[in-house]
């Protein structure tokens, strides 16, 4: 039996980093908003400092919809697909902002203009063969007010490096100009991060404390961070992590205009005879509901955004919703986040506590912050070291060829070295290419019988050369701080990731993009898309703040153009 519900002004599919942001400006403008979320609500009592629950068992008390829809992956069409055991993203009110690292960066201005800036500075031939990269349809300056809004409305801690052109060497001097400082000072340093910052300065680099969507002091009546060491894939026990579940979503609910529907498993988006979105279909406990809407914002993460569009076929859209130009799933990339460097020190680091966002960054080799004239790649990487360790993870540290992986010799090694290892996080520019894309897997289905996403994607020479370059810098940094051994991990493959881009890319032309400069479909005027799937480049840093700034901007555009878009 199907139940048809009362028409809403706006339906948001997914209440995570993106949808949870958009709800607030829409509800505050007086629109009736329904948010459909596959997961449930979780509270601070659910966030035990428990490594088995967080890091081993993937939150057993939570809805695991995404884990039943893990995408398959193949590096190219000639290779069989493989399927990872689990999905990196989270279902719940607040989505992955419940347990993410909360690093909260603005992209560098260069990331919005990779094609034209590379051409201008080095010549068009320096754009890697096969890349489909385009300039974004907006620049950093146009997004800056929305970055500012999200930083102040949710709470981001950091040290500004460039306020209206005035540089502060204790912040990131490579960032684009911002209109004002962060609302909170950065998270504090530790003995270890201070050591690393001093080592970076000894190399002539410019270390700084990176930005985090975490309270460094009481903010909006919520507690400061307790640095207790369970933030990495853990929810916050004092609500100091400013995910949407504790910031924008409750504020949107307080307007009385925003209804949160949990355990809603969305299966399709309907269109009317005019080719406009008319309703969202979802299933809860075997019952199908139709939620009619004047406008729909799709915010279900890259894989599910693309999947729902491809599954929503109709006479007007025989290849999937908003896909009459064949662009849904194209220009996909996942961030080159692997290729880490791990170091062994001859002394204890005391990094048992802290969090991944409590770290020291170096941006000297990120984006286009250095001359690439003598290099064989474009783009760069952000170097990041941080304080984060738990016992099971510690006991699984590599042994650097100095001990076997079990037995008495291992035990002696681990007893001495468990607190002497550090793993860096190196995010690098990644580009879209012809041949890297998402589509529906012809063989693997979810429990409802719908095909899962198939990722066909691999890194190319530009990403591999850049990885070598960045690993060289990271090794130098560790050795300057006293490390006695390092291990370089491979860059890996473009399998399922927490940092994914493209698939519904934003751009001026419908021929190469799915959504326009405001985030609305080129083909379906009352359908907006939120999330990393609209981004055409990765930058060298975590995407969440950019996703949220774009989401706020798309919602703002809908409010200001309600009659044109929705009526």
């Amino acid at each position: 039996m199907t139940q048809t519900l009362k028409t809403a002004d706006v339906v948001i599919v997914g209440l995570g980093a993106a949808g949870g942001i958009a709800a607030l400006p829409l509800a505050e403008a007086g629109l009736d908003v329904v948010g459909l979320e596959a997961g449930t609500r979780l509270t601070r009592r659910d966030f035990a400092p428990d490594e088995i629950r967080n890091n081993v068992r993937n939150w057993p008390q939570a809805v695991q919809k995404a884990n039943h829809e893990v995408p398959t992956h193949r590096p190219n069409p000639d290779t069989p697909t493989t399927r990872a055991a689990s999905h990196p993203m989270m279902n719940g009110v607040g989505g992955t902002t419940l347990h993410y690292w909360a690093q909260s960066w603005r992209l560098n201005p260069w990331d919005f203009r990779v094609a034209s800036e590379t051409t201008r500075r080095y010549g068009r031939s320096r754009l890697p063969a096969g890349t489909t990269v385009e300039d974004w349809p907006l620049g950093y300056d146009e997004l800056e007010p929305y970055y500012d809004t999200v930083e102040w409305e949710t709470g981001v801690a950091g040290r500004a490096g460039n306020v209206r052109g005035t540089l502060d060497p204790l912040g990131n001097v490579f960032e684009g100009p911002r209109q004002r400082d962060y609302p909170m000072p950065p998270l504090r340093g530790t003995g270890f991060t201070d050591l690393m910052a001093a080592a970076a300065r000894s190399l002539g680099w410019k270390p700084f404390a990176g930005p985090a969507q975490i309270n460094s002091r009481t903010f909006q009546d919520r507690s400061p961070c307790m640095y207790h060491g369970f933030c990495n894939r853990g929810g916050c026990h004092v609500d100091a992590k400013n995910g949407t579940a504790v910031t924008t979503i409750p504020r949107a609910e307080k307007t009385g205009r925003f209804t949160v529907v949990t355990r809603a498993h969305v299966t399709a988006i309907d269109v009317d005879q005019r080719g406009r979105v008319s309703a969202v279909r979802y299933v809860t406990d075997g019952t199908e509901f139709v939620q009619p809407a004047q406008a729909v914002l799709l915010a279900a993460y890259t894989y599910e955004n693309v999947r729902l569009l491809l599954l929503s076929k109709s006479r007007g859209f025989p290849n999937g919703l908003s896909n009459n130009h064949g662009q849904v799933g194209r220009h996909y990339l996942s961030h080159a986040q692997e290729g880490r460097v791990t170091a062994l020190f001859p002394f204890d680091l005391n990094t048992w506590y802290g969090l991944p966002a409590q770290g020291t960054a170096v941006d000297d080799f990120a984006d286009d912050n250095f001359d690439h004239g003598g290099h064989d790649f474009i783009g760069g990487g952000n170097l990041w070291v941080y304080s984060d360790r738990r016992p099971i993870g510690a006991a699984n540290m590599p042994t650097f060829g100095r001990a076997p992986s079990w037995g008495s010799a291992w035990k002696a090694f681990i007893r001495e070295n468990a607190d002497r290892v550090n793993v860096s996080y190196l995010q690098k520019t990644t580009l879209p290419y012809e041949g890297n894309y998402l589509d529906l897997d012809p063989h693997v289905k979810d429990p409802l019988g719908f095909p899962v996403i198939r990722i066909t994607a691999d890194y190319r020479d530009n990403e591999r050369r850049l990885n070598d370059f960045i690993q060289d810098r990271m090794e130098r940094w560790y050795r300057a701080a006293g490390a006695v051994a390092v291990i370089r991990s491979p860059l890996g493959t473009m399998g399922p990731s927490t940092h994914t881009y493209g698939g519904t890319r934003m751009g001026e032309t419908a021929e190469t993009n799915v959504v326009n400069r405001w985030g609305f479909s080129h083909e379906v005027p009352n359908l907006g898309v939120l999330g990393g799937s609209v981004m055409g480049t990765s930058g060298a840093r975590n995407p969440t703040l950019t996703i949220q700034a774009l989401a706020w901007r798309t919602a703002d555009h809908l409010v200001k153009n309600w009659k044109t878009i929705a009526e």
Partner: protein
Amino acid sequence: MISRRDLLKAAGAAAAGAAVPARTGAEVSTTAERHDLRHEAATRAPLESLTAEEAELLTAIVARLIPADANGPGAVEAGAVTYIDRALAGPLAASRESYRRGLAALERYAIQSRGAPFRSMTAVDQDSVLIDVEAGSATQSAGFDGSSATFFSMVRAHTWQGTFGDPYYGGNRGYIGWDLVGYPGVRTAVTPDDQRLGQLPPRVRRSAYDGDSFNKA
């Protein structure tokens, strides 16, 4: 790179003449206290999923993965087998069959290749069997479900969880695992002093679920 075989040779040479059967525990239980812990581990927890025979074999395996030795008690004393047994009746139920097949296959391999059941071998021979299982070279002769290396890495991962995870799940008894790696313990608030170089904070020993601050998983 030091190979495991080289290390084993060195260890074997050093221990020449001292290769007593592992199940007596003579080379590992050097104090009455450790013996008590071990005895307790073996007798206290009623099994929830493993058979008694499987549990004894698994105990002999994890005793070699993280042995009790001069650096203190190991995985058996920490209750890693209890952790695994309980998990196989719950969150790890999907791995129950892999344990049934894998343990049986390991025992067959021990008898085929070394002429003795795993539990009656010397520690050095047990290690050599485990090296074969880890490397995948036990796969063909004994009928593992997939590669023997897959079975080994599964048992290793679960043993580590049961030794170093929160004691709420039945392992890490007496905080043996946390003492081994030097973890200062679960705190819900950490001060700047707790994060200084060269000075670890004092150890606290509690489970995340002591004190009813958190819903149980």
